Every structure is written in structure tokens, then in C-alpha cells.
């Protein structure tokens, strides 16, 4: 039998450089980062894309994406993205932010970019902790969750309650898409990929602000093996932060 060239089933996306990432083994940051790159690639948007990296574990994402990249101050990515988009509306602008970045120090920038209907796509990594600084309490840390700065478990009486970002933003008229996904299983990864693509499509159509919240893990600072971390995510995070579509301007179309 003549040797036939087997069809290519899987390729490295050209929207990523071949730089080795700095994420810890088993961390879900890497999967989401890749999904974002694949979406840009599939939609043919990589050449016009400009990404904004946050302050957090994804800070050097500018080395991983092969599109133009801007590094933003802690929490300011939506403001930086606003400047990029207003200056060149023809470009595809996205931010990639952790929960401390987006929902604590950058909450004002997040809410106002959303309510303005800023035509950008926000990828929000919710891992219920501050990863980069070594595991402090985040605005999304669950009640009772132990972190470096909530050593007895998050006491909501003293530390306040967690923020459900998609639910919060879904009330704003400027939001075109607010969807929460997770990437803990292959089928959930496929759903997440679809949501991220949808976010970019909405931007291409000029529909306004899109946010895809990705429930993620931090095995290092949760103090768990990667496998255990996935279990913890399913048992604790998913019930508190149910995946789903919280706002979709095209729903029912």
C-alpha cells in the first residue's frame, strides 16, 4: 500500500508564539489562553488583534500571543483597551484579566467599559484567588475559603461577600454578551471555545462589550494537585458561580 500523507487533525495555532508559558503545571490559564488564540485564528482576526495583558499570572501574555500586545497597569486593562479601540476601531481588541485585576482594583474600569458598551472582548479568569502574589484572598474567594490573607476561611462578616461578575454586569445595557464557562473537561473546553468565538464575533459586528468569565484553577495556591483542584472547582466554584449565559443581545434570534 502506498504511503499516504495522513490528514492534519491538529495544528499549533499561529496566533501563539512558540514561547514556553510560565503557568504552573495543571493550571487552567494555559487552556484559556490557547482558546483565545485559536478563536482569533479561526475567525481570521489575528492580524488586526491587539491584546491587553493584565497584572497577574498572565502578565507576560504579551510574549505568548503573536498579535500586537500591550501590557496594562493592575486593573486598567479595560481603560487601555478603550483607548486602543477608540484610536483604531477597525482593530479587534481583547483583554485577558484575573479576578483581582478585573473585579477588585479594576472594578470601576470594568463596569464603565461595560456600561459604555465599549466594543471590546474581555476574557476573565476567575480562580477565586490572587495567583501571582502568592495566594491572597480575591473578591471572588468563596465564603469559608482559606487563603494566605483569610487563614481562618473567608468570614463574610469581616471580609464581605464574593462578587458574581457576570450576574452583576448582565444588568448593564452596554453589555452584548456575558457568559460564564469552565474548562475542566473536554466538553466544557469546547463550550468555552464557542463562547470566546462568540465574544469576538459580537465585537466584529459592533454589538458592544462582551465578557467571557472562565472558572479556572490555581493548584499552586489552593495547595492541591491539579486533579484535586479540578474536583474542588466542580464541587465548590461551579455551584457558587453557575456557568451559563447571563446576557446575550442576540438571544432568541
Amino acid at each position, binding site marked *: 500500500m502506498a504511503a499516504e500523507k495522513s490528514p492534519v487533525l491538529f495544528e499549533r495555532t499561529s496566533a501563539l508564539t512558540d514561547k514556553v508559558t510560565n503557568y504552573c503545571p495543571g493550571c487552567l490559564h494555559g487552556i484559556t489562553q490557547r482558546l483565545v488564540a485559536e478563536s482569533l485564528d479561526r475567525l481570521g482576526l489575528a492580524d488586526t488583534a491587539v491584546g491587553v495583558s493584565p497584572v497577574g499570572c498572565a502578565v507576560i501574555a504579551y*510574549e505568548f500571543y503573536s498579535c500586537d500586545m500591550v501590557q496594562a497597569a493592575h486593573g486598567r486593562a479595560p*481603560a487601555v483597551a478603550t483607548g*486602543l479601540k477608540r484610536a483604531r476601531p477597525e482593530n479587534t481588541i481583547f483583554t485577558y484579566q484575573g479576578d483581582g485585576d478585573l473585579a477588585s482594583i479594576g472594578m470601576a474600569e470594568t463596569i464603565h467599559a461595560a456600561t459604555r458598551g465599549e466594543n471590546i472582548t474581555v476574557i476573565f479568569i476567575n480562580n477565586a484567588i490572587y495567583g501571582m502574589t502568592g495566594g491572597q484572598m480575591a473578591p471572588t474567594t468563596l465564603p469559608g475559603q482559606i487563603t494566605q490573607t483569610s487563614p481562618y476561611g473567608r468570614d463574610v462578616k469581616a471580609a464581605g461577600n464574593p462578587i458574581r461578575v457576570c450576574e452583576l454586569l448582565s444588568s448593564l445595557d452596554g453589555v452584548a454578551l456575558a457568559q460564564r464557562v469552565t474548562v475542566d473537561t473536554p466538553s466544557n473546553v469546547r463550550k468555552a471555545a464557542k463562547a470566546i468565538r462568540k465574544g469576538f464575533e459580537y465585537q466584529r459586528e459592533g454589538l458592544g462589550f462582551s465578557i467571557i468569565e472562565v472558572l479556572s484553577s490555581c493548584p499552586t495556591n489552593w495547595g492541591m494537585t491539579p486533579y484535586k483542584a479540578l474536583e474542588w472547582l466542580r464541587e465548590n466554584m461551579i455551584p457558587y458561580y453557575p456557568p451559563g449565559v447571563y446576557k446575550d443581545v442576540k438571544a432568541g434570534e
Partner: protein
Amino acid sequence: MSEKILMKGNEALAEAAIRAGCRHFFGYPITPQSELAAYMAKRLPKMGGTYLQAESEVAAINMVYGASAAGVRVMTSSSSPGVSLKGEGISYMIGADLPGLIVNINRGGPGLGSIQPSQADYWMATRATGHGDGHVFVLAPSTVQEMADLARMAFDLGDRYRMPAMILADGLLGQMMEPVEMPDPINPADLPPKPWATTGTKGEREHNIVNSLSLVSQVLEDMVLERNERYQRIKEVEQIAQLEHTEDAELVVVAYGAASRIARSAVNAAREEGLKVGMIRPITLWPFPTKAIEDVCATAQAFLSVELSTGQMVDDVKLAVSGRRPVSFFGHSGGIVPTPAEVLVAIKKALAGEVFHILPFHSKLEAGD
């Protein structure tokens, strides 16, 4: 060049920025810069530009950061408390080598202070607009014409050296009306290209990165040192000061912005009395015009810094004089503008050989005069 028109300082600055090719403005309301933002809100949307009222000064300066990264001429304007908030973004702009114009219509401080004219942000502007080793250009207009001319210059210098530029003015200059000749407009499309900007690769080049982070100390030091070399070059070639009656002056008054207008009246009055007094008016506060001061050290016997602060620029005068001559200070703070008569008293004291640092208390003034 066009004919002269009567304009407010804030509006002249805004119009000149538009004529410099700036089509993007991000700000947050604060007195006494309101006319500037209002002018932009009226004009920019009609010419395909952006006027955006941000949620805060923090957001506004970070929008400036983003738009500058995209390669366009962009600006923000504010007043003292708002400029404090911009410190973070300005530091990031310095660290990422991004140009952009920041206007500070300086008001009384600290804290909420007052809305009256002040020069108490001199230190903030020239020493520490934010954290880290770094500088921004600081330009100090003293007329409505200069509000316009220095806006153009701020954009040109910023682009040439890839640095933010600040115009440090005050409510007096912002509100006053004077005839002004507007510079010819530049079409943004005719501005020199910025090959470093994040405009999208279009599949034609490697990706551009706008960034201030460097986790390798040696790389960061190299970046800081490269920037520092640029600063040294700038100090060599970009100092600007106006000299008046300095050739034979025994006493040289140093004053900028609104204070220089009052100081000029006092200097002229002194001249009428036959006193040998001159004035150096720094136009660039960073780089500080040290050369002009060094040059007159040969003939001047003493210096007098006149400011709307408790004495800030006087530090730079002393550094430039470097102990060769005595340097005195006279000023008001809190939004009080000195009268030429008060300055004339200080001039005579300094001519008589006194060395002083005077801040008249209101109560004392009432008792004395």
C-alpha cells in the same frame, strides 16, 4: 499664519492641540480646566475624533496610554487632585516610552485645596509624576499665545523622544483672554509614522509590544539607563528660557507662568527706579534651564525665585546656581497671587544683600501694610 483672535487660555490650548493633529481626548471633570474639556467635547466628535468622559482620572490616563500605544496623538487635561490620580498611568507611559499630552491647570493644594491659581505642583511635575526613575517634559506657558504654542511643542517633543509631556499652567492662564495667533493645522495622516505602535500586525511584521515590565534586572537597568541617556541629551538641547534685562542685572528674578507676569511688572518698576534687576523665565521646567542661570551667574550678584507656592522651583534655581550666589525666595500659596508691589519689596531686600525665604501670613500683611 492666520490673524489674531481673542481666546481663553484653556480654549486656545485645546484648539492648538487639535491643530497639532490630536483627535483623541480622555478626561474627567475638574475646575479650573473645564473650558478645555468642553471645547474638545464640542469639536472632536464633529471631526471623527474621540471625546470621552472617563469614570475617573485613573481610567482617563490609562485610555491615553492605550490610544498612544495605538500610535495616535492623544491628550488628557485635569487639575492637581486629578493629576495625582494620573500618576500611575504617567509612570506606565514613561516605562513603556509612550508620548501623550497631560495638561495640569494647577490649583491650590494639598488635598482638595482650592480652585484658585497655584504653582504648588512644581515638585510633582518635575520630580515625581509617578513612581520609578523617569521624567516627563514640563512646559510652562505664561500667555494665551504660549498655551497654544506649547501645546504644539508638547506633541512634537513627546513624539520625537517617545515621552509624555505635561503643560503646567494655572487657572489664571486658563481663564484669561488674550489675542492669539493659531498655528497652522496638521493633518494627522501627515504625521511621521510610529513603527513601534500596536496597530495590528496586518500579517506583515513581527508583533509589537508596548510594555514597562522587565523581570530580568539587567534588562530593566539597561532600559532605564537608555532612557536616562535620552534625558541627558534632552537637557543638553531642549532647555528654553526667556531672558529679560539680564545683561547688566545685579539681581535676577526667576519666575514662570502666571508668577512671571507679576514678577515682570515688579522688575519693570524696579528698572524705572534705576535698579539693575532682570528676569529669567523658565519655559521648560523639565528640562530646567540651568544653562541660562549658569550664564548670568557671571554678572548677577543674587537670585530671587518668585512662585505661587511655598518655594519649590527655588530648589532648581539653587541647584543651577550651585552655591555661587545667594538665592532668595518670595511667594504666596493657597491660591493667593502676589501683587507687583509685594514683589518689588522683595526685590529691594535682595538688592540690599539680604538672603531670605518669605511667605507673608495674611494677618501680618494686614498689620504691616
